[in-house]
């Protein structure tokens, strides 16, 4: 029985589900998991169909690959095709579609595009290849941005001059706020992101209960963490509380990581606006390099086209990222849009809701059987 193994402790899962059913009663609840890592766990383990039918999990915008707009991918490809440029990026970014193909296509056309594990590997390529100009395509939330910050400080310390960063780092709070402000969704609460919170801590989420009256529980990544966090959200609601709680306290400290936050502040500043795929422009949501680091900032070193490109018509990633549509409700899901030939970004990264559902949707019935509950 593979699924017994996947639910490390099926008995504990059953106990949590009993508690959840009791707390939920007959009322309908809609909780958003902000983080793509959670989306992955939920589909991977069929948690949607294990939970009582009146509890719905909706997927949020916390997949860094999914939110990169097409124009930024086009800029990346333009950079990759400049003379003497070695363009470096995380593997997930290679297949994100621009308006005219992706980075893999650029590589096939002869551009020197390399995937790296760490931004420090990109810096290493710059040190080893003084006659080349190395650009790192930086994406990610506060989980990843401190790593880019350290890399830039390190480049400065080593006096590396043939290195620059094309920053597409984003912050987690503005999209949560944008979703709370949009009339489309009526949410009962949030599962807060785990690894982002190791950096930012619990405090930045306080506005969610205080201003919007919704509970938020910072959650870990195991199936049991998700179930425990759903139970914590319901308990808050039942007890008439509304606050930020931390289910993932074994890793997340309330104050976050002060060293990482200091490095972020040293290297980055907020952009007035940044475009998110499907969500449009969100103010104060993107990070750019400070003036002190202008010589390491690809946006200042190169004359980027910076053209804004509308998302393809068929693509409904925006609705999926806002939790308004389920992946399978998109018209091209699984037909024109698959992980091999993605039309939208949500099909590219394993943390994207569409890719996770495409790969693991079939798990649902088996998981429901294991814990002895059927959703329908």
């Amino acid at each position: 029985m593979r699924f017994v193994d996947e639910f490390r402790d099926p008995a504990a899962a059953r106990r949590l589900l009993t508690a959840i059913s009791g707390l939920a009663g007959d009322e309908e609840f809609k909780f958003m998991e902000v983080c793509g890592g959670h989306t992955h766990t939920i589909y991977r383990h069929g948690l949607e169909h294990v939970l009582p039918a009146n509890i719905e999990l909706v997927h949020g915008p916390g997949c860094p690959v999914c939110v990169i707009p097409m124009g930024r991918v086009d800029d990346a490809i333009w950079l990759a095709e400049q003379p003497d440029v070695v363009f470096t990026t995380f593997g997930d970014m290679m297949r994100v579609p621009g308006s005219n193909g992706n980075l893999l296509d650029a590589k096939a056309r002869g551009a020197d595009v390399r995937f790296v594990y760490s931004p420090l590997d990109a810096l290493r390529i710059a040190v080893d290849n003084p006659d080349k100009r190395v650009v790192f395509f930086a994406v990610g939330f506060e989980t990843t941005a401190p790593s880019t910050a350290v890399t830039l400080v390190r480049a400065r310390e080593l006096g590396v001059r043939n290195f620059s960063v094309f920053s597409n780092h984003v912050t987690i709070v503005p999209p949560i706020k944008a979703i709370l402000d949009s009339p489309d969704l009526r949410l009962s609460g949030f599962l807060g992101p785990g690894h982002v919170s190791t950096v930012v801590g619990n405090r930045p989420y306080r506005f969610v209960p205080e201003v919007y009256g919704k509970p938020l529980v910072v959650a870990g990544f195991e199936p049991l963490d998700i179930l425990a966090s759903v139970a914590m959200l319901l308990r808050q609601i039942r007890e008439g509380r509304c606050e930020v709680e931390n289910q993932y306290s074994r890793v997340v400290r309330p104050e976050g990581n002060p060293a990482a936050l200091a490095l972020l502040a040293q290297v980055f500043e907020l952009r007035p606006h940044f475009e998110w795929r499907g969500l449009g422009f969100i103010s104060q949501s993107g990070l750019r390099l400070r003036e002190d680091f202008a010589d390491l900032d690809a946006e200042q070193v190169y004359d980027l086209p910076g053209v804004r490109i509308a998302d393809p018509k068929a693509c409904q990633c925006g609705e999926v990222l806002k939790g308004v549509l389920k992946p399978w409700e998109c018209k091209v899901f699984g037909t024109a849009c698959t992980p091999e030939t993605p039309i939208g970004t949500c099909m590219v990264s394993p943390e994207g809701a569409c890719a996770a559902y495409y790969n693991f949707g079939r798990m649902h019935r088996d998981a429901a059987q294991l814990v002895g509950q059927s959703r329908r």
Partner: protein
Amino acid sequence: MCLGIPGRIVEVVDAAEHLAKVEIDGVRRMISVRLLQKDPPGEGDWVLVHVGFAMARIDEEEARLTLQAVERLGETYRDELAAYDSTSIV
């Protein structure tokens, strides 16, 4: 991409440069521990590794449980490990 994988520090290679050798699933690579500079981890400590950086200290029990959880991600975990295997930082 936001995956954090537990690794054990096998050697603090250069404390001034915040470099440590970390073992994940038998693979030993150099990572940066600069994000933990306020409370630097030592040999034998477990850390959560993300894109070549230790992002949080964790205890051994948490490390074991997290490792089991990420191993069950299958392909995603193997890809991450292959990427880790490829790293050679400065």
